[in-house]
């Protein structure tokens, strides 16, 4: 009790310090006056009494000091005094302060922004009521559960509500005469009731409602212009009217996570769902898990399937935080690792940039510690203990770090606001809502403290080490060889790290260049890709096939169209890559492989400009009633038939499809740009039926695709109002394939250049400092007859030594460090390619030369007479 009272009383003192001083003065005055009165009464004169009283009282100053110290919290007072002193010092050296704060701001800004993005993508809390009691249910080693099993599970009554959501779906939205494809998430009618997703306008979807939809804020803003009367409006999706009952808030986060943001949620049956369950009151998760397991075994009994067991891999996992990430990772084997690796790499990269920035600031502080050595020596001689002075120097770096962190946070806020405005449309629409929160604050404070220690500790210890003698000695001189002072070592380290960063950035840049110039194997300059999708309920598969055939005939007849073909898959945009067994009639054993599959019309190879090397392309005669035919690419033919001519041979495909090889085409790209030796099998479109209600059409323009873009789109739209058609030029569509490379190159390239710029600044600082210190020496040499060339050689020599050391170490580390990056790169770009490092070394040399320029000129301009007087 007494302890806390003391704290509160001392805090009270802090707030009324000036009044305290005044009162203490009055009190002491009173004491002396009373004493003087008494002395007067015992016979002394007034003046004598006063002087004797003062004498008896003693030093008022000391009494005031000691009384004050009774109230002070010593270290706090010291800290504030240090802060004021540090602020004054920084104000006096504005250039230094600004440079240091800028360096730190850039490093911290980049680092904290990356942290914010990573936190948002990986660990964001989904928008729902009471996320602690909401869980995601998984069965049969998968996240998705078919509708029948969902209904079984729902009715089993284990949970207090089981809702389903399917995120990968698309709906057609008819507005006026245009039809658009939207990312519509299908939910069960009880989904909103179970999850409690908050709604900003209107209300959520209620159980047992049908034909209602809830829009996301983004869709409502972009497509409906924030119409205040949107609630109650009927929008036509997939040919049916849906009533809008609600609009979601701006910061809505989907339960699936990773920034996924659909256009709307609607009540529509889906073939499979992600499951979300609310646990009943008082039920533990373990209990629910056990009951789930039991129900899953029941499922296996009711729906027996030899290949797939529902009871294997059941899980009840949390909907947010680390657990969701782990659970997702378990289920989506291999899918999550690249994402986490990507973010880890970005964090490391920005961490390295921050380190370079810290090294800069540390170097600057070291330089100042040396120039202040006299001031520090005087302080030491006046009684300042080493610890005290060190604390003061550290407070300076703390102030720098605090300013740098604040500025860095401003950069962070600006960048994250910028990022939150973007919407990545594919493959699944992603929109990030990055909001600063306590996690960011905690991380920033930690960074600030780390930076303080990293930049300030060594200079502080160094600066207070030398005793008073060392400070007043003449500054040390050296002739000729570079001394490996701490600052020089810092610069070498900075250069080394810059090289590592540059190597990474260079790799991504080459990857990007390579990807853009990569030959896709098919024509992208004059090709148009159209997709049209009919409402499944309105068309039987036969009707749709007829519709598709009509479509391709009409488009093919348009002026400006050279050829048009239907296709089941589109290379690099919508590929289809199953694996299965293929048996050639020549071989005795079957080949099991993953191959790219497509079912195409007769003009496909002409549209795509893929050369037919042997045999023929498909013809109109290859219809459903005629003999089944197949066309292979070179790799597949070689795999199945070796060097023999495959034409005329028969092949057994999966699902017992026996086909005859009629053609051989050149290899091209199918699945991703970066694939090697892909296999491909083509069937005739008319001979392949899978009942999907959508089709792709590929069109070759006579001149440029822009000529016919509109007319193709209109033709398709005219087929049937409920059909949604999307048409775009292939070269535009391919931009999305390049997006990861572009993002990687942009981010890594920028951070690498940032790191290099910071290192260059460090190099410049060190060289300038070295020249300034050796001005006398330069003057002497010039007086003794050295030519400007000699001086230049001296200065440049130092620079070259530093850069060479940094480059050597950096390249050695880079050789090892860039190897893991190969998972993000196209196979043609190899991380350990020599040209990469040569390029990096050249860039470094160029920047180093620039950094040396100014100090060199400074050195050359030295006037020998002035220099000899210089201290």
């Amino acid at each position, binding site marked *: 009790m*007494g302890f806390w*009272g*003391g704290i509160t*009383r*001392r805090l009270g003192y802090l707030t009324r310090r000036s009044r305290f001083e005044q*009162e*203490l003065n*009055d*009190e*002491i005055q*009173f*004491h002396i*006056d*009373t*004493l003087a*009165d008494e002395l007067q009464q015992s016979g002394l004169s007034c003046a004598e009494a006063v002087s004797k009283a003062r004498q*008896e*009282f*003693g*030093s008022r100053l*000391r*009494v005031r000091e*000691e*009384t004050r*110290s*009774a*109230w002070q919290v010593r270290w706090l007072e010291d800290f504030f005094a240090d802060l004021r002193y540090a602020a004054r010092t920084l104000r006096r050296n504005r250039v230094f302060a600004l440079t240091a704060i800028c360096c730190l701001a850039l490093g911290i800004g980049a680092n904290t922004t990356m942290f914010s993005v990573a936190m948002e993508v990986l660990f964001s809390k989904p928008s729902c009521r009471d996320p602690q009691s909401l869980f995601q249910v998984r069965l049969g080693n998968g996240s998705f559960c078919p509708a029948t099993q969902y209904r079984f599970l729902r009715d089993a009554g284990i949970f207090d509500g089981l809702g389903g959501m399917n995120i990968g779906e698309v709906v057609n939205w008819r507005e006026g005469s245009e039809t658009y494809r939207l990312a519509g998430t299908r939910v069960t009618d009880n989904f909103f009731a179970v999850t409690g997703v908050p709604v900003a306008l209107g209300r959520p979807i209620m159980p047992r409602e049908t034909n209602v939809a809830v829009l996301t804020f983004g869709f409502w803003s972009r497509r409906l212009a924030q119409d205040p009367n949107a609630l109650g409006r009927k929008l036509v999706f997939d040919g049916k009217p849906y009533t809008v009952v609600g609009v979601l808030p701006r910061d809505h986060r989907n339960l699936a996570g990773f920034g996924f943001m659909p256009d709307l949620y609607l009540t529509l049956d889906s073939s499979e769902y992600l499951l979300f369950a609310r646990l009943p009151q008082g039920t533990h998760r373990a209990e629910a898990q056990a009951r789930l397991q039991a129900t899953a075994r029941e499922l296996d009994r009711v729906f027996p399937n030899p290949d797939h067991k529902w009871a294997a891999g059941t899980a009840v996992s949390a909907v947010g935080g680390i657990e969701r990430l782990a659970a997702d990772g378990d289920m989506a084997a291999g899918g999550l690792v690249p994402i986490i690796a990507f973010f880890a790499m970005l964090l490391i990269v920005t961490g390295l940039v921050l380190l370079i920035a810290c090294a800069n600031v540390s170097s600057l502080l070291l330089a100042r510690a040396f120039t202040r050595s006299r001031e520090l020596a005087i302080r030491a001689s006046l009684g300042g203990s080493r610890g005290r002075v060190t604390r003061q120097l550290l407070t300076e770096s703390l102030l720098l770090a605090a300013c740098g962190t604040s500025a860095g946070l401003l950069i962070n806020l600006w960048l994250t606001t910028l990022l939150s405005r973007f919407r990545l449309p594919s493959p699944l629409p992603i929109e990030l809502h990055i909001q600063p929160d306590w996690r960011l604050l905690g991380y920033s404070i930690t960074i600030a403290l780390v930076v303080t220690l990293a930049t300030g500790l060594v200079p502080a210890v160094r600066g207070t080490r030398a005793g008073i003698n060392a400070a007043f000695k003449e500054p040390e001189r050296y002739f000729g060889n570079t001394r490996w002072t701490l600052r020089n070592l810092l610069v070498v380290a900075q250069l080394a790290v810059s090289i590592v960063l540059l190597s990474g950035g260079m790799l991504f840049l080459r990857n990007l260049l390579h990807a853009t110039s990569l030959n896709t194997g098919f024509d992208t300059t004059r090709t148009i890709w159209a997709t049209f999708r009919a409402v499944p309920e309105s068309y039987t598969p036969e009707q749709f096939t007829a519709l598709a055939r009509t479509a391709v005939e009409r488009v093919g007849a348009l002026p400006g169209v050279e050829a048009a073909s239907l296709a089941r898959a589109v290379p690099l945009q919508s590929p289809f890559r199953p694996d299965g067994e293929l048996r050639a009639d020549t071989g005795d054993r079957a080949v099991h492989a993953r191959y790219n599959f497509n079912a195409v019309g007769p003009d496909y190879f002409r549209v795509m400009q893929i050369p037919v090397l042997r045999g023929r392309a498909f013809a109109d005669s290859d219809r459903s009633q005629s003999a089944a035919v197949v066309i292979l690419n070179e790799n597949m033919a070689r795999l199945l038939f070796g060097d023999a001519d495959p034409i005329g041979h028969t092949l057994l495909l999966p699902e017992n499809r026996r086909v005859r090889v009629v053609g051989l085409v050149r290899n091209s790209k199918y699945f991703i740009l970066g694939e090697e030796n892909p296999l491909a099998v083509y069937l005739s479109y008319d001979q392949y039926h899978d009942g999907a209600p959508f089709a792709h059409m590929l069109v070759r323009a006579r001149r440029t695709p822009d000529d016919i873009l509109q007319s193709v789109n209109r033709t398709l739209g005219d087929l049937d109002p409920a059909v949604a058609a999307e048409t775009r030029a292939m070269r535009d569509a391919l931009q999305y394939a390049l997006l990861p490379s572009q993002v990687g190159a942009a981010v890594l390239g920028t951070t690498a250049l940032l790191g290099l710029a910071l290192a260059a600044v460090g190099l410049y600082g060190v060289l300038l400092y070295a020249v300034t210190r050796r001005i006398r020496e330069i003057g002497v040499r010039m007086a003794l007859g050295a030519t400007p060339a000699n001086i230049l050689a001296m200065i440049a020599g130092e620079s070259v030594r530093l850069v060479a050391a940094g480059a050597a170490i950096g390249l050695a580390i880079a050789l090892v460090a860039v190897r893991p990056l190969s998972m993000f790169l196209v196979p043609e770009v190899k991380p350990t390619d020599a040209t990469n490092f040569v390029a990096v070394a050249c860039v470094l040399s160029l920047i180093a030369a620039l950094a040396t320029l100014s100090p060199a000129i400074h050195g050359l301009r030295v006037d020998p007479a002035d220099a000899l007087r210089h201290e």
Partner: protein
Amino acid sequence: MESPLNREVLPGTLYLLILRTLRRGPLHGYAIARRIKDASRDGLNIEDGSLYPALNRMLVKGWLASEWGISANNRKARFYRLTAEGRRQLDKEAGEFDRLMRAVRLVMRNA
């Protein structure tokens, strides 16, 4: 009258003396020093320079409370009084001091 022996007060007993002096009622700083000097028949003389720091330390510890008032000679002065905590501290320290003195006397008599 013999000149008063200006003996420094034993360190550690200063608090005890001040607490005891204030037992009967609030006093201002000068009066406290005066009272101690008189009560000890000039045996103890508190150096004025150490009085105020001590008083303030006791204020921080919560043994005393202070307020401004008017002194006997009509001047504004700060008066100190014992708090309940201070009374407890007085009893405690008085007890300790007695024990210490008894022990010292025993040693002086018997050793």
